């Protein structure tokens, strides 16, 4: 860690005051930025706690006069997303059903691919890796229509497995990149030792690499989970009634064009939709940084 604050200097008094002033300045700057980052969340939370009446008449960014949780209740189980007025609850579970397997599968495949690219290189492995990486950069709008066609041909159009499939495909580039960058830091000697011990390709992966991968699994899972959970474009294009993820429901609540807008419900729904990803960041954020240090940063 880079710590300069401990350096003693000529006059103890002078430096002490200088140091304290500097520290205050430091915290002040950090605080200002914290406000910048928190502002939208603040607006969302306060709005969700206001009544519609108050929103219509008052200042949108002011603190609520009367705190009410009605909007939250409505958003969770009462808001209309079409003719059903069950709130976002059913869609929440759709999202879980999509995100959990998609994250798991793309992470596992990414791990396997990264393992091959980093430790079982063969001719052309680099080119394959490069091609996969390039896939990370394709704008998703481009693939919507041909993908729809193929999903139809595969018979999984509009189904949850179809959505899982799409997310896995377009997550592969990043997960492979993460794992590959992490695995290149694991010494080749480990693989060699295991080979001499008689272990094969899968055995080495399963018994040796996978247990070592926790930090990078955390990074990948966080990344993939936020991507998939927050995805709207695929969700809206490749779902049908009954398989729509929460972002679509949220969009239905928030973005109706010609109806009456209930901003408090919108915001409450938005926060509910964001809770899982927020939770993931708050709980695992520290492993996220650690995982980045461990692998993907190495350039």
């Amino acid at each position, binding site marked *: 860690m880079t710590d300069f604050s401990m350096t003693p200097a000529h006059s103890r008094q002078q430096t002490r005051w200088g140091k304290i002033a500097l520290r205050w300045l430091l915290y002040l700057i950090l605080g200002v930025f914290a406000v910048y980052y928190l502002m939208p969340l603040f607006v969302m939370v306060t709005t969700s706690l206001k009544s519609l009446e108050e929103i219509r008449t008052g200042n949108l960014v002011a603190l609520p006069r009367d705190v009410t949780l009605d909007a939250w209740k409505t958003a969770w189980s009462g808001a209309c997303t079409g003719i059903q007025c069950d709130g976002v609850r059913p869609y929440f579970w759709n999202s879980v059903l999509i995100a959990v397997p998609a994250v798991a599968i793309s992470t596992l495949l990414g791990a396997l691919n990264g393992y091959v690219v980093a430790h079982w290189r063969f001719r052309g492995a680099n080119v394959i890796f490069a091609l996969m990486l390039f896939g990370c950069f394709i704008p998703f709008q481009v693939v919507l229509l041909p993908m729809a066609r193929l999903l139809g041909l595969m018979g999984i159009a509009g189904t949850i497995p179809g959505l899982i499939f799409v997310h896995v495909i377009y997550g592969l580039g990043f997960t492979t990149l993460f794992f590959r960058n992490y695995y290149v830091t694991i010494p080749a*000697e480990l693989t*060699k030792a295991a080979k001499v*011990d*008689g*272990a094969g390709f899968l055995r080495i992966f399963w*018994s040796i690499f996978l247990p070592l991968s926790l930090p990078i699994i955390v990074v990948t899972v966080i990344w993939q989970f936020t991507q998939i959970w927050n995805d709207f474009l695929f969700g809206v294009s490749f779902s049908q009634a009954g398989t729509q993820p929460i972002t679509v429901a949220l969009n239905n609540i928030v973005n109706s064009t010609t109806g009456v807008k209930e901003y408090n419900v919108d915001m409450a729904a938005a926060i509910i939709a964001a809770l899982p990803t927020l939770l993931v960041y708050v709980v695992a954020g520290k492993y996220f940084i650690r995982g980045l240090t461990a692998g993907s940063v190495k350039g």
Partner: protein
Amino acid sequence: MAPILDIKNLTKNYGSVEILKDINVAIDQGDFLVLVGPSGCGKSTLLNCIAGLEPISGGSLHIGGQDMTDVSPKDRDIAMVFQSYALYPTMSVAKNITFGMKVRGVDAATQASKLATVAKQLQIEKLLDRRPGQLSGGQRQRVAMGRALVRDPKLFLFDEPLSNLDAKLRVEMRTEIKELHQRLGASMVYVTHDQIEAMTLATKIVVMKGGVIQQVGTPSEIYNRPANLFVADFMGNPAMNLIPAKARSDAAGTRIEIARRDSAPIVLTDSQNRNLPEDVVLGVRPEDIAEPGARAAANAQEADCLVDIVEPAGADTYVVMQLGGKHVTARLHAETDATPGKAQRLAFDLGKVSYFAPDTGQRLN
């Protein structure tokens, strides 16, 4: 009996680069072969070829009489110990040792009994439940040995197993490995670039440079009769003094003239070696330049030399002078009164000197 390991005309390329060139080595059951050489000379590559971890590009490789050229590592009946130990970081010590057996489907009872034996042998019984991360360097080293020992293989391969340990531990572990070798009578191939390790452990040493074998021999052959300047310089610490000198051979022997900085050249007479060319490089080990009378040397000749640096090293004191335009080190007693800037009388033991051709670097005597 067939040699336990027999390498014939082995070559190894990475792409178009030839890393190993026409390697021929054979060792017998119970031999302790040490591969030494500077970093990057291909020692690890050769060891990996023996283990089957790298395919070879040419030549053949037999282990225990069987052609193993294309056999996969796990079927070669070898065990290997790595420089970084390569312990499986997420497994306990016990699991590290038994992993290979588990993979091979050895039953649990056998696993346990073999584990117990090996753990006892290496005195790591108390560590069996720990993770590698919780072990000191020496302990890790022992576990890595345990993982190899438990296999009871035809051939042990070691890739610089001690180089990550500190000096003290290195000496201890060295002794342990030597003891182990004597007790098991196993065949071992051992890579190091520490030549003391090579000397103390080996029954046979291979010195390599740039993928080419420079010399194969017993430790004393290598130490006392290095085949060329490279081997002479590489083996021994402090290194052999390699002094440019003029030789004048006649029937009685050879007069060797060595330039001195501030005075007339030293002239030594070698009665054993004749027929040397005029320009030679004289190779003398530091311990063969000593106080007069320190050792009963058959062929000792004395001269005064101006001392530049005195390095007391506890057991001995090294003094450095300049002869023939080079730093020359002599090993004196710890109690010597040599002082920098003063002349010191030294005896050169010509019984054990080497001569090399300055151009080719090949040994002349």
